[in-house]
């Protein structure tokens, strides 16, 4: 077992009722790297991502087998505190989804539900999180305005600031740029490269160029199977599996 594996999937299978959405997936993800999951729609990449913060638990009829280890510990072991786990593993969703609250209340949401409410405690974290998401300069004068008035890419970076405020060490991103235009996408991608210095990032993307641009490791999934995973440059230039080759060259679906 390599030492720097932050995340390790061991024979992970997941069932929605009788449907097997993940089939004995094995994969490791390294600390402070960006791991991209690619594959056609419905291949299970979002499902795999969501096993990490146990968001699949919310769906009725989900059953999971195998081990999902974060820092060596199985996060599905009985007695795991899911709320603590989710604070450690933040998530950015497909569409920017700020609450209909002010910028300030959005960023401090995770702190408030954790019981941290005094302004003196919240304020430094607020600024630090917004700075880390490259949003401070744009919003510092409008912290009390509705987050819904921000342009979409700022909303998405606000969502990133919101999760940074609870101090995670892993960030999951589920097609974070699919609602953004190319320029906004570029900004978010640059931000991801910056965040990588401190955080372990796992991103699901439909955009293969995006995976190629920003990720260190890429995994290609098809119908619930992890077909192939490895260093991004190697996977894109010299895929080992015929099916990966077909997908990358556009011969699949």
């Amino acid at each position: 077992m390599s030492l720097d594996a932050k995340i390790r999937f061991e024979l992970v299978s997941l069932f929605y009722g009788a449907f097997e959405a993940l089939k004995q997936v094995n994969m490791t993800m390294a600390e402070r790297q960006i791991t991209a999951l690619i594959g056609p729609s419905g291949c299970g990449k979002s499902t795999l991502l969501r096993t990490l913060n146990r968001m699949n638990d919310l769906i009725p009829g989900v059953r999971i087998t195998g081990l999902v280890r974060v820092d060596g510990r199985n996060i599905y072991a009985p007695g795991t505190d899911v709320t603590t786990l989710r604070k450690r593993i933040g998530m950015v969703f497909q569409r920017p989804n700020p609450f209909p609250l002010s910028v300030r209340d959005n960023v401090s949401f995770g702190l408030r539900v954790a019981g941290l409410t005094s302004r003196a405690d919240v304020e430094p974290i607020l600024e630090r999180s917004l700075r880390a998401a490259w949003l401070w300069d744009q919003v510092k004068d409008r912290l009390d305005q509705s987050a819904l008035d921000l342009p979409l890419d700022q909303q998405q970076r606000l969502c990133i600031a919101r999760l940074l405020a609870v101090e995670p060490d892993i960030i999951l991103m589920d097609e974070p740029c699919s609602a953004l235009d190319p320029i906004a996408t570029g900004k978010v991608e640059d931000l991801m490269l910056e965040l990588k210095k401190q955080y372990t990032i796992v991103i699901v993307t439909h955009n293969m160029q995006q995976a190629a641009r920003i990720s260190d490791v890429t995994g290609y999934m098809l119908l619930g199977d992890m077909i192939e995973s490895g260093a991004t440059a190697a996977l894109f230039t010299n895929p080992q599996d015929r099916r990966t080759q077909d997908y990358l060259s556009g011969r699949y679906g």
Partner: protein
Amino acid sequence: MNLLSPKWTQRIAIGVLGAATLATLLVLLFIIVFVLEKGLRTISWSFLFTNPQDMGRAGGIFPTLVGTLLLPLLALAVAVPLGVGTAVYLTEYTREGRLTRIIRFGTDCLAGIPSIIFGLFGFIFFVTILKMGWCLLAGGLTLAIMILPTIIRTTEEAIRAVPYSYREVSFSLGATRWATVVKVVLPNALPGIVTGVMLGIGRCIGETAAVIFTAGSALRLPHSVFDSVRTMSVHFYILAREGVSAENAYGTAAVLILSILLLNVTTYWLMHRFIGRRA
């Protein structure tokens, strides 16, 4: 074969729909103008704030004003926590299944029962079996049961209208289900919940049958929840039914209409302010 060109069907449709709307508005306007026209001249400070004399033939309506304020307040104090709690449980804590369907069917049935039945139940259970007698408490509890289904259903709808993505984000930030309900779901469902509460208040204020059976119709100021009260609706009913004083009956009706108007305007104003601040 089409007798009418699309242009003409369109015109006729607009005409019919417009006429329907106009008819509704006219009927409503007629009722309000009719009552106000007959009642407004009776209203004065002394009419509002003095005690009635000679069974309401003379004097004011102050005790009924107090009764109309207290009875719905008591009903809401009971029905809102119960109703909102039930709705939260049904939507956030259980999965759709046989049990939720049965509960929902039950509340729908309850909503359709005529108010006199609630009055009868309140009379038998609160007034007689629990020996409360005709009083504010018995009336308030009866009205609470009566408006409970409305509050449950409107709250449920309001909660369902809160986007699932809000809950998802909240969970992903490490919020528990309870924290999500309190900090995300309920604040965003508030306008809908308030609408339900308003409907409930309206039903309480307008109710006569269930109130006479349970809160009685004593024409004096209550000193505790165990005293009988008379609401404006009941007062109006008795004045008109027993031919005590048509003038004071219309005066009471006018006050009733104006207070409901005031209630609605204030609520919407407050809601706009509140939502304006939030979003």
